[in-house]
């Protein structure tokens, strides 16, 4: 299992320099493949934003639960 994870990690990491090799400019990944990574970034922003908000909501609910338990 551990080995497999290491292999996957290695495979992922080895693709990064392969992408950068042909291009002189840096930070080009967002403009590669028809800028699809911009869409990925937008998607992730929304997901992370919603998740953070829901976690905040969860803490609020836990606080209320504790308060209710104390009252009983």
């Amino acid at each position, binding site marked *: 299992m551990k080995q497999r994870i290491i292999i996957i990690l290695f495979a992922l990491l080895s693709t990064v320099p392969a992408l950068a090799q042909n291009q002189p400019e840096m930070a080009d990944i967002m403009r590669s493949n028809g800028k699809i990574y*911009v869409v990925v970034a937008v998607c992730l922003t929304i997901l992370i934003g*919603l998740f953070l908000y829901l976690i905040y*909501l969860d803490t609020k609910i836990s606080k209320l639960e504790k308060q209710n338990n104390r009252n009983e």
Partner: protein
Amino acid sequence: MDVPRLFILNETIRNLYFHVCMWFAMMILFIVSLVYSIKYLRTGSIQQDISASQFAAVGVLMGLLGYITGAIWANYTWVTDQGQSLAAVLKEPKLIGAAIALLIYGAYFVLRGSFTDIDKRARVSAVYNIFAFSMLFPSIWIIPRLVGSLHPGSPGSDSGNPALNYNDIDSRLRLVFYPAIIGWTLLGVWIATLRIRLNQIADKELIK
């Protein structure tokens, strides 16, 4: 799903399903909030006031997400790939208008927080909510369409609402876009109802 092949935009046209839907969800949630505020003023029940404030809160969340995603999108289409200077982007009427609209709604929560008397808070903030909604008209619907702008929907791009104009949006996009609006809006409604239920439990004594 295939999308129209456009220069500069490239695949980022798919952000239509995310960035634009955020704003649609925000507008719909604000409309719901407005309806509850009017209902509060008619009935005077705190229940309606809770609903109004929570729908507005989730609307602001959607607006903020729309703003951030818009900034990312603009960075790769306006700033770098159209060679626009940052100064030109910051003068963008759509951006300024949306910022003003969100700040007006931000003031709604400041106003709510500043009252200790619950009935007074509900009444004043219901009236303020109607004002805040009416300010959406000039700030995000009218002014950006009157003045030149990089954003779609301005006079430069020769269209009305870029998302709903039948000449502007491709039918392949519409197939995903309309369900996406409904989906994101329902997600917002769900979060709002969670918050409403939470506040109903918190203020159980007040509602009775």
